Structures are given as structure tokens and as C-alpha cells.
């Protein structure tokens, strides 16, 4: 049933948020530290385990893939509810600060990505990491 998938997704989310919240409290910050990321790892892990048992019916996974497919529309709704007017009314300081941060951040992507690491994973073909990376992004 689709609700099993939705419940699994929701369960992972709540569990991740709880861990993220606890992490924040331990470190004494008023924020959820990586709760969503932890939930993502948990979902990958749990669905892999269930797959290995061979028991994830299509109807169940449809509860997850529906929300996956709703991602872009939700992001569009998010864009439409951003405080864009405030961003432009902050004056030159905030405008330049934001622009500089984005330029530097984007410029650093190839610097940190650098040369791909030599392949260590024996499951992948012995091709270069570049090739396997592009293959990875083409998947799905």
C-alpha cells in the first residue's frame, strides 16, 4: 500500500530530525544539525535492506516516488513564497555580500572537486573515476 511508503519516508524524516535536534542540543546550538541529511541516509539504508529481503512492492515504493516527483513543484512553490522584495531592499551591503559569496562559492566547486580520486571501489568497473561519475549521474 502507498501509505506504507509514505509512512516509511515520514518515519525516516522524524527519526532524522530527532537525531539532528539532539546533536544541536549536545553542541549547544539552536538548530537542527543535519536532520534532513541523516533522514536521507536512513532512507537509503532502510530501503536497501528491504530490497535485499526482496520485499518492497511497487505500491509501497510509489508512496516514496510520489513525493520524489513532487520535489520540483514544491521547490517552485518555495520560490514563489521567498522574501524576494526584502532581498532587494537590503541595500548595497547585502547585495554585494550575497553576490560575492555566490561567486566565490561557485568558483570553489571545481577547486575542491579537483582531480577525481583513484578508483578504489572494486564493485565499479576499472574505468576512471570521471567516467564512473558521469555514468552515475546518467543513471535513473
Amino acid at each position, binding site marked *: 500500500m502507498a501509505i506504507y511508503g509514505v509512512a516509511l519516508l515520514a518515519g525516516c524524516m522524524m527519526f532524522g530530525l530527532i537525531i539532528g535536534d539532539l546533536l544541536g542540543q549536545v553542541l549547544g546550538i539552536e538548530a537542527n544539525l543535519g536532520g534532513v541529511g541523516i533522514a536521507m541516509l536512513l532512507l537509503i539504508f532502510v530501503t536497501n535492506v528491504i530490497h535485499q529481503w526482496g520485499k518492497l512492492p511497487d505500491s509501497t515504493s510509489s508512496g516514496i516516488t510520489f513525493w520524489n516527483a513532487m520535489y520540483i513543484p514544491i521547490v*517552485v512553490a518555495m520560490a*514563489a513564497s521567498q522574501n524576494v522584495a526584502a532581498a532587494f531592499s537590503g541595500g548595497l551591503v547585502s547585495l554585494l555580500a550575497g553576490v560575492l559569496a555566490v561567486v566565490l562559492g561557485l568558483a570553489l*566547486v571545481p577547486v575542491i572537486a579537483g582531480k577525481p580520486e583513484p578508483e578504489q571501489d572494486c564493485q565499479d568497473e576499472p574505468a576512471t573515476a570521471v567516467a564512473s561519475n558521469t555514468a552515475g549521474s546518467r543513471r535513473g
Partner: protein
Amino acid sequence: MFESLIELFDEYHLIAAFAVIGLTMYLSNWLSVRFTNGKFHGSAIAILLGLLLAYIGGVVTGGENGLADLTLFSGLGLMGGGMLRDLAIIATAYGVRFSEIRKAGVHGVVALFAGVIVSFLAGGIIAVGFGYTDPVDITTVGAGTVTYIVGPVTGSTLGASSEIIALSIAAGLVKSILVMIVTPMTSRIIGLDNPRSAMIFGGLIGTTSGVAAGLAATDARLVPYGAMTATFYTGLGILLAPTALFLMVRAIA
């Protein structure tokens, strides 16, 4: 007649939002195919349209939630709010291969620290350039440039004035919105076309909404990888900005 219509939209706001966003997506995909031959993603156009409408909504109502402040479109706030957005982001992880994440793991962590520090410095340097000398002000603007959540949290911890806090929020918003617009345009130049660089991108840029929309407009398959690292960014910023980074600013200023 018209009033009862608005009332109906208000009562069924989430459902109305689904319909409105569906129409926006359809229009955007049509524009993409018709005028750009599909080269400019339909989702990128939809996000730009969304931002434009948010600007109009903000100017018309003077509120903080873009188009969602108009009663007719109040459901957009729920649909695009943190709860459903995070649920959908987590759902994108379904089907991701763990080996891809492990491969970029260390670089992702490096990117996270570099991203927080570089954004902070960008904001701090601009603040100094505009004549701010108080370490609290410089730190708050720098923290806001990290994300618009880190700014106010840091500012209120350090006791910054509300003007500075507002400035820091604006800096974070500019960054977030700019990322949404610029990412699909620069993706080829910076090599943003594989899970590894997406994880590094997420760590360097960090603002969840910016990364989420930027990657959605570039290649939706990269979303889980970028979101994975970005989700730690705000927490790390809140951890570093009022502590280590503030001490650094105070030592220099």
C-alpha cells in the same frame, strides 16, 4: 461572488496551490520547448517565474512570504514551506547509491567548512568595505551571508542591533535567490554534472532553498547529493559564526 471565490481559495489553500503550481509548471515547460528548444529547463523557468511572482507579492502586500501573502495564494506557503520541502528532499534520496556518497564524503566535509568560512569572509569583507568597524556588526553580516538563518541567530547571540540583523537576513536572501538563478547558467563551467561535484556544491553553497532550487533547475538527479551536504551547512554556520569566527574577527578588527 468574487469574495466568496477568494474565500474558497483561502479555505482550500493547499489544493489551490497544487493547481496553481501545476499550471505554472505547464506554462514553463511550454515556454522552454517553444522558445528555447528545451535548452533552458522548464523547471528553471518555473523557479524564475516563482521568484518574480514572489517579488510582486512582496511589493504588493509588504509581507515576508512573497506571493503566499496574497490570500488567493496562501497555500503556496504550506506547499513550499519547510515541512513538505524537507519531505520531498528526503524522498529524492530513494534510489541513491551509497557508494557515490561515500566516494565524495571527505570532499563534502571539506566543502562544508570552506563554504561556511568563504561566505562569512565575503560578507565580513563587504561590511568592512562599507565602513563597519564593530566586530559584532561585521560578524553578523558575515553570518547572514552564510545563510539568512545563521545571521539572525548569530546577531541575537552577540547582541547586534536589529538594523544589522535585518541587513544580514537580506544578504542571505540575496545569496539564496542568486544561487537559484545562477546555478543552471554556470553548471557547465564549474563541472556540476555528477554526484561528486553536486555534493561539493551543496557543501560550498549551503543555503538549503538555494541549493534545492539551483539543482532542480540544473539536473534533478543531482538533488539528493547536493541536499545531503547542504543540510549540515546551517548547523555548522550557527556553530562557527558566533564562536570561532567571531573570535577571529575580534582579533583582527
